[in-house]
């Protein structure tokens, strides 16, 4: 199995040769990987070097935390990648911005109302979490479209709080 893996805008061609070997570019390397205690923590022994890392899947990407550094990694099946490249990728951008809760918390106050015009950087919602008050600001100028929460309400992470048209 061959993969094309992208980190920090650099591409690596990695082939899983067999259970004990991978090929990175031209180099054939002995490899052994174990997940620790069934957790997203991996112990990797690569050509004698021992590494340990948290590896999380984050939607389409992989997030690797290694020796205090975080890497966003894109892993693509070589065949898949070729097909995609052939088809071309079109990114559609919606006109509406949805403010999502960056963390679970309590809505303290909503200093804006539906229909109100807001400027970039204007505070839309104050969210309290772990005893800190966090100001959630508008990323651009616009008009408040729908406010989906009330002051005093508890919200989950990634819950949509309001929208800007």
């Amino acid at each position, binding site marked *: 199995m061959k993969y094309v893996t992208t980190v920090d805008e650099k591409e690596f061609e990695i082939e899983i040769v067999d259970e004990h070997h*991978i090929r990175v570019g031209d180099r054939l390397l002995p490899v052994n990987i174990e*997940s620790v205690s069934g957790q997203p923590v991996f112990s990797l022994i690569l050509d004698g070097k021992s590494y340990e890392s948290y*590896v999380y899947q984050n939607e389409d990407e992989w997030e690797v935390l290694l*020796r205090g550094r975080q890497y966003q990694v894109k892993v693509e099946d070589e065949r898949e990648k070729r097909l995609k490249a052939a088809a071309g990728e079109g990114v559609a951008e919606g006109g509406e911005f949805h403010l999502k809760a*960056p963390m679970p*918390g309590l809505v303290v106050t909503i200093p804006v109302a539906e229909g109100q015009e807001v400027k970039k950087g204007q505070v839309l919602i104050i969210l309290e979490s*772990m005893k800190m*008050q966090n100001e959630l600001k508008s990323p651009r100028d616009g008009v408040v479209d729908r406010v989906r929460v009330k002051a005093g309400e508890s919200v989950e992470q990634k819950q949509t709080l309001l929208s800007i048209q």
Partner: protein
Amino acid sequence: MFKKVLIANRGEIAVRIIRACRELGLETVAVFSEADRSALHVRYADEAYLLGPAPSRESYLRADKILDIAKASGADAIHPGYGFLAEREDFASKCADLGIDFIGPKPSSIAAMGDKGKARATVIKAGVPVVPGTEAVGNMTDDDLLRVAPQVGFPLLIKATAGGGGKGMREVRSLEEMPALLQSARREAEAAFGDGNVYLEKLVEGARHIEFQIIADSHGNVIHLGERECSIQRRHQKLLEEAPSPFLDDELREKMGSVAVKAAQAVDYVNAGTIEFLVDKDRNFYFLEMNTRLQVEHPVTEMVTGVDIVAEQIRIARGRQLSYSQEQVQFNGHAIECRVNAEDPFNNFIPSTGRITHSLLPTGPGVRVDTGVYPGFEITPYYDPMIAKLIVWGETRAQAILRMRRALEEYRIVGVRTNIPFHQTLMDSHRFMGGQFDTRFVEERFSMDAAASESRQAQAEIAAILATLAAHKQAERSAQIVRRNERDTSNWKWVGRWERMHR
């Protein structure tokens, strides 16, 4: 002399206090919110009583309920820890009224130091230097504050009168932005302390935050246990503390120490407390405030002096004399504490909640971990994000940094994100290693990406391999699941067919 101590707190500090009590042969009573039924302080205490729902206001801030529990359980002393009720004069007074020993200072000392304005006035009288500000006693309106601000001079700080821990604090660069900042500071102070009053203070630029640990007994003995350097902060929250400060020499240490003792004596202080100073580039130092309680960062002082501060607090509250004279306090080696917070350093330090599924503590020589969490425990958004303190000791500062590096590298916590990578990056920072930093260092001259981008590149390939192998394993696993499901579904299809046939 009391025999049973109620700990009016949660988390690592409640555990720390229970340990001290147990080591002194005292019984312990824990109190807990609904979110904390399985918390370590509940598991370790001899007795445990429910306070109420998770929010602090309905649990750990319910002084009335806590006092009822003390009476009902026969606890004859209360240790408040830090935060919550620790600096509430009225709570300390009520304990005294009920004949319960409050393991802390007298209510009058809390009051004298608790109102930051009064505190400044008091210490000025004792000849202690303070940062220029609105030290006038009493609460000022926004109008008053706006009027007096230009006299204090910009940049200045708005600070909560009842405050601590950076809550309700705002930095103001000009008169124009001040009204909005006053409002948000008051709002945060009101939420955190139930008191929206604020005062102004000149912002000392390039300052270091250096504090002195004081202990005083009820026989008039007051000594200091040296300083802690706490300049590594973010949004006025301390992230790392060390002792001794790389910035002080013996002469300045002795001078500041005796001023700290004087400040404590000015309010007739008993028990453990901390005098916070700002020290500017020219080594001028200013009294900032006194924390009339045990401090989060007390372990670094314990590591370099060998004094068990919590045990000493309890002995003092039992009426004993200090176990040490100032001359007997010896400083040995260097200690560093990293506060491990459940927050994501790669995502603007937003708090992270969830269940801890796995944890591996760094151990071995010179390493101490104070924590209240364990695998299976749920981190909720109701309380402080600090889940552990990692403390190391080394013969020298350099050795302590090396030891901290290896301890941070060993520490595993799965289930929530932590700021351990922040501390790892900090330990690699040349400025930190050189001791060249002030309280703005983290916010202004530090970046999670900056350090050693060369070694980042070298490791990028390893990261790529790790992700690829994880992705490959996952693809293999899901292929198996699909295959198994196919079989299962087919059985269920049969059932469906059978049902249709016999309808």
